[in-house]
């Protein structure tokens, strides 16, 4: 009985935590960017503007649930649901600390890859269903970008799998007790980080929604909570990428003195802040440059990393 209660607490707790912290991230990002850009950011609602999230949520929820008459209604509604669902589902396999985590899958890593692949559908469906030229261009870019970077995302992880000898994320963390994988797999860490940003299509890989070219890209026609789901989905995906990096390369919850969960959250927050900083710093490459970078730089590097790791493991 108590184990069932614990499980439910685990599942609901993590779900609430993930969604809530993703929502909070919108505030964190705006505040941090504000500080780095010599301005305040949202500081009016509540102490330090922390209730800005609540205000935004109220605004989004109160908006008319509008579907454009020219849109493909069913697909239009399904797309943001997928966006939200896949990233939250992928978070289920993340082991946050011993005993904290939704599910402990043998193939946790594969499950993560499968779920992130699915997220390409949400963008494509959203773009297709909108029947809008800007959305269409955004959708095309997104499809090409996400499919390409999916490849390097997967390949960059295989080195870790070889070293740990398992697809189980909990065991991968435990395998890092001697040494974090970031040291032998530094290159893989960088590749995964880049591919992860591309997967969550954030600057400098925000081409699918490049504001200055495509107004809002694939979600041009979305408003209200449907837009909110794309938006929160993006931030969950940021959280997911950061958590995944912590698990795979930075020893998960491992660390001295502080409780495991605190270590996990601390490491994750630092990586999230790094992603926000990158957004503040870099311009956006062009679509063809992005693809060329992927296939001509990322792919060979991922391959080399894989081969070298393989040789070292065998020897």
């Amino acid at each position, binding site marked *: 009985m108590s184990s069932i209660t614990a499980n439910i607490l685990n599942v609901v707790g993590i779900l609430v935590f993930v969604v809530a912290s993703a929502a909070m991230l919108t505030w964190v990002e705006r505040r941090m*960017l504000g500080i*780095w*850009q*010599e*301005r305040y950011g949202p500081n009016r609602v509540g102490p330090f503007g922390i209730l800005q999230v609540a205000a935004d949520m109220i605004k989004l929820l109160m908006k008319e649930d509008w579907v454009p008459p020219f849109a493909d209604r069913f697909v239009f509604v399904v797309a943001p649901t997928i966006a939200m669902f896949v990233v939250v589902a992928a978070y289920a396999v993340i082991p946050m600390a011993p005993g904290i985590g939704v599910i402990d899958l043998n193939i946790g890593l594969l499950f993560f890859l499968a779920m992130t692949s699915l997220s390409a559908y949400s963008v494509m469906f959203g773009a297709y269903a909108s029947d809008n*030229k*800007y959305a269409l*261009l955004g959708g*095309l*870019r997104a499809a090409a970008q996400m499919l390409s970077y999916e490849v390097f995302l997967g390949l960059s992880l295989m080195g870790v799998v070889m070293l740990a000898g398992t697809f189980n994320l909990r065991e991968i963390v435990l395998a890092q007790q001697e040494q974090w994988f970031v040291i032998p797999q530094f290159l893989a860490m960088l590749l995964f980080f880049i591919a992860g940003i591309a997967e969550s299509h954030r*600057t*400098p890989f*925000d*081409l699918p929604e*490049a*504001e*200055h*070219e*495509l*107004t809002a890209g694939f979600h041009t026609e979305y408003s209200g909570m449907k837009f909110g789901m794309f938006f929160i989905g993006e931030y969950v995906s940021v959280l997911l990428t950061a958590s995944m990096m912590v698990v795979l390369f930075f020893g998960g919850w491992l660390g001295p003195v502080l409780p495991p969960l605190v270590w996990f959250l601390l490491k994750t927050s630092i990586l999230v802040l790094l992603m926000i900083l990158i*957004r*503040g*710093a*870099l*311009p*956006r*490459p*062009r*679509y*063809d*440059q992005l693809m060329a970078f992927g296939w001509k730089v990322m792919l060979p590097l991922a391959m080399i990393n894989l081969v070298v790791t393989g040789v070292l493991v065998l020897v």
Partner: protein
Amino acid sequence: MTATTLASSRGSSARAAGVVADLLKVFPDLQVQNTIDDMPTVWATRESVRQVLACLKRGLSPGYSMLYDLTAIDERVRANRRGQPASDFTVVYQLLSFERNGFIRIKVPLRDNDLHIETISDIWPNANWYERECRDMFGICFDNHPTPYPLIMPATWHGHPLRKEHPARATEMEPFSLPDEIQDQEQEALRFDPAKWGMTRHGDSTDFMFLNLGPNHPSVHGVFRVALQLDGEEIVDAVPDIGYHHRGAEKMGERQAWHSYMPYTDRVDYLGGVMNNLPYVMAIEKMAGIEVSDRVKTIRVMLSECFRIQSHFLFFGTFAQDVGQMSPIFYIFTDREMMFNIIETITGGRMHPSWFRIGGVAQDLPRGWDIKLREFIKRMRKNMPHYRSMVLNNRILKQRTVGVGVYDTATAIEWGVTGGGLRATGFNWDMRKQIPYSGYQNFDFDIPLGINGDAYDRALVRFEEIIQSLRIIEQCLDHMPEGPYKADHPLTTPPPKERTMRDIETLIHHFVHESWGPAIPAGEACTPIEATKGLNSYYLVSDGNTTSYRTRIRTPSFAHLQMIPEMCRGMMVADVIAIIASIDFVMADVDR
């Protein structure tokens, strides 16, 4: 300084006489008109004008390579036209020769019952838009024009706004109403037809997609529209559409008194602030015969350079933003805010102080005016290297902009490109150096040049210009001459206040100039300046009245936008944004 100014003006009028003599050898029938601004002015006929223009461009050596401006004047109610050929509508061409450092003005008289003239868009491609504008505004028909459609005005518009009989105020017209059937007609007229824009729906093997970029789009800097013909993400053709920002600034010039038109000029290039006042007041001062003191000239230069910095700041920030870099604009806006505070302490206004006056400036510099400026210069000396490494040395930004939107010097001149866009091609021509005005010859500064004429070089040139403007301001700080801030001349508006309460003559002057405004002697003048975005000038025609008879505003951005298709073909959608960002235009400066 007065001596050098006189010498240079004598030199230019001698050169001007040379051109006219050369021209008269080939075309003995031309009639010469003397204008107050020393710009050689000749009258051609409708039949001969194409040959005259072609001769000026290619026949003379050195030739007049740029069509600087093309406009018209409704002459029907003009009183003071002594010695000029009979004309109801006069088409005016202004050409610029970089080798001669001079302009020439060709006029063609047309009669009311026969408003036809041959197009010159085959001689200069940039005549295309100018002629369409003329057609909209005056109803002059340019025969054989390649795209004879309205440009500025809506296709459904009746009447020609710059004709004298067209009302200038809404209150002079019938109350506005929009019945359903008219609304349907208006809607129908907006329907997009690629053929009218010179584009086709289908290629040999593909169907094209038309993407309507603007008039409301985050990156078009105002209400500007480009219709893109796309093959995938590649641009087959791009056709700009302007006129959404047209406010009839030229028409208002004919309605407002000379003095009270000043605030309108600020809002033409709305980032240029008082720099817009400069060509306007200089043209009026020329007609009125006012010579301003060195102090006035230096104050004007200093504030103009302040606004050049402001405009370039905004350009630089939005340029980075448009290629996806989020932060620079925020840092730059902090600096920009500091500068606005300084401008506010000096002029009392921020973006549009309208601070220059006919014959001077509104007030003398306040006590301690230089302290904050010095601080600002010190701060910018420290910040500029940061901006350079943050934006110009960024590799992704270079990838996005180097080799994008390239044109060479010849193409630029052909299309009427001036300012930073011209200097980015490596062509060393800056009005401030070549035909100095307002005392620019006394300053020590360099002209930054680009090499490739691409989007990156255009940004680089403007970035370096900020540094040079700082140098000029510093010299103003160190060597501000003493003297009156207003010329002692009866037409100075408003007149110096000190004596108004002492004798009746000046009191009357003051009253008349404040209420009706000054009556400027009949004549024509045009004094181009190197404004923030290129060459800007006011071609003013006075009929000896308290208002201008014709105010023609030649703006640089108008010419620059016309070149967009030239730069965009074969590029990607993202490149269009980089190209648009690199042009540095504001729509008010295009549509006026």
